[in-house]
């Protein structure tokens, strides 16, 4: 260390922290190119993007004509958009209502188990689907629910149905299928954080309750749930914040044009309209609408979480 005082504050700062700036360079370059540059590309939502206007995408963006908010004004008059927006909200709400409580129940059950062997095995099994891609999960569900799959066979041999049910091609069933398969994949994994919270409860509380003659259900109601209520409320707020994320990879793999009516969501619409029909400007406008509403929801959720718990996502 140099004990001499440097006259230049900037040089001193650089000498002390210069290495740390160097550490940041690779990460900064990557987010600059792959995250911030596309944000600039959002301008095409305000233009009529024509791929052939220039020799490269950037040239084409510059040369395409401005149309202002025309694409946004057209959004709510567009049936595909209103349908996808409605489906996004409905599917997400179903997922929250039906799937949010399950990890809490799972965590309570898992922490109740005494047999170490069983506890480890069941945890290993229920975390597993989280690590599979939606391609594999879709393949498994098609396998089971397909026209010759086991479920249709059982239902037929039990006399419940005479013709196979088209689980993936039925507008009345599709949303249920989405909620159930999302649950199958993620509820086990989502229990981890609650298991950690329950494991952290002071065991003396349970001992004292047992002395007073409380049974397990009473212990859950009066000790476990109140002790983890902060975790529950915080995760609930953050989950609501992510309401516009209805599950792009899942739906892209599971849906087909037959169920667009009940299954198409904003992000799948962006994909089809943009990369399928090359309707770039419209797709970008839908995507931007989605991103902005999502941003407001996430910021709102985080603000609320910080206000209540002095702790947010970041």
């Amino acid at each position, binding site marked *: 260390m140099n004990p001499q005082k440097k006259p230049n504050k900037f040089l001193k700062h650089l000498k002390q922290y210069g*290495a740390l700036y160097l550490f940041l360079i*690779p990460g900064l370059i990557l987010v600059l190119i792959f995250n911030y540059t596309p944000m600039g590309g959002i301008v*095409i939502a305000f233009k009529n993007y024509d791929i052939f206007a220039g020799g490269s995408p950037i040239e084409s963006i510059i040369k395409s004509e401005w149309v202002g908010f025309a694409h946004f004004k057209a959004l709510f008059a567009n049936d595909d958009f209103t349908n996808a927006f409605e489906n996004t909200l409905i599917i997400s709400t179903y997922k929250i209502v039906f799937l949010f409580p399950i990890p809490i129940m799972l965590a309570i059950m898992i922490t109740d188990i005494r047999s170490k062997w069983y506890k480890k095995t069941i945890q290993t099994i229920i975390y*597993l689907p989280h690590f599979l891609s939606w391609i594999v999960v879709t*393949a*498994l569900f098609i396998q089971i629910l397909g026209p*010759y*799959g086991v479920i249709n066979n059982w239902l037929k041999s039990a006399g419940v149905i005479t013709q196979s049910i088209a689980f993936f091609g039925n507008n009345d069933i599709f949303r249920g299928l989405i909620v159930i398969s999302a649950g199958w994949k993620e509820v086990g994994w989502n229990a981890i954080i609650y298991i950690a919270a329950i494991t952290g409860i002071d065991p003396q509380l349970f001992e004292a309750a047992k002395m007073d003659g409380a049974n397990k259900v009473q212990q859950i109601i009066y000790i476990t749930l109140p002790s983890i209520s902060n975790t529950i409320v915080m995760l609930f707020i953050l989950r609501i914040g992510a309401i516009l994320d209805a599950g792009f990879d899942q739906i892209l793999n599971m849906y087909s044009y037959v169920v667009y009516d009940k299954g198409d969501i904003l992000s799948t619409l962006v994909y089809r309209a943009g990369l399928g029909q090359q309707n770039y400007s419209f797709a970008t406008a839908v995507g931007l609408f989605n991103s902005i509403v999502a941003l407001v929801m996430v*910021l709102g959720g985080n603000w609320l979480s910080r206000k209540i718990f002095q702790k947010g996502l970041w």
Partner: protein
Amino acid sequence: MIESRSDKIFSIVVYIVLTIFGLTIILPFLNLLATSLSDQVAVSNGSVAFWPKRFTLSAYQFVMENRQFWNGLKNSLFITVVGTLLAMVVTTLTAYPLSLPKFRARKTFLVIFIIVMLFNGGLIPTYLLINQIGLRNNRWALILPCLISTYNMLLVKNYFETLPEALYESAKIDGATELQIFLKITLPLSLPTLATVALFYAVGFWNAYFNGMIYISTPDKMPLQTYLQTLLNMAYIPAHELPPEIAESLSTESIRAATIFSATLPILILYPLLQKYFVKGLVLGSDK
């Protein structure tokens, strides 16, 4: 203490519910495996449940001889190994300065990384960017954009923050540079969290299919999951693509099942071995 009657019933219900849930996860795999090992007659009359009927290995023979499968596997291995290594380098390098309280500028840089977690340009502008910079039909298009996830970086940063500052102080007095401290103190002390995050990246790279679907146009560069997706979208595999000696006896379902099972096997084998690390690392990292 003697268990009361209601507590016993509670415990029994817990075992029953969890076992049923566990079975709903295992049985689809057994069904997939059984289908992959059964011949065409058994699969098409729908009699295969959880045990192979009219056992045959020809679906696996087809997978082993399928060039697309091996190409996909090779590409996915390359993307996963190279991607995970580079992602760990970038992520830990970024997390280190952001974890040091003495580094005043860290707040500003943190904001830069959090913004990209909350807002992005969206599918179309990103797609146009990849085209613009010439990464179209290049395997690096599946690696470079995924090298830093803010979520993973924050997990690492939060863990780095829990390391005792006294260690850093004494290293500083001994004249260690930031790079030496980072390599010799910070990283070795963070192995469980680093293993967790490496696993998250590896699973992310292994499972990614979408970028492969939109950026890769030649089959020999396709990652495995993208190939699986094309296989899934095929109503049936054209007979001329099958070797004549097995075309008769093999159903599209069996081939699909055998391919999916072979592609998932690495995860099924590695995952139980790694499980203890990631649960520990996740809980440590999330505890701010």
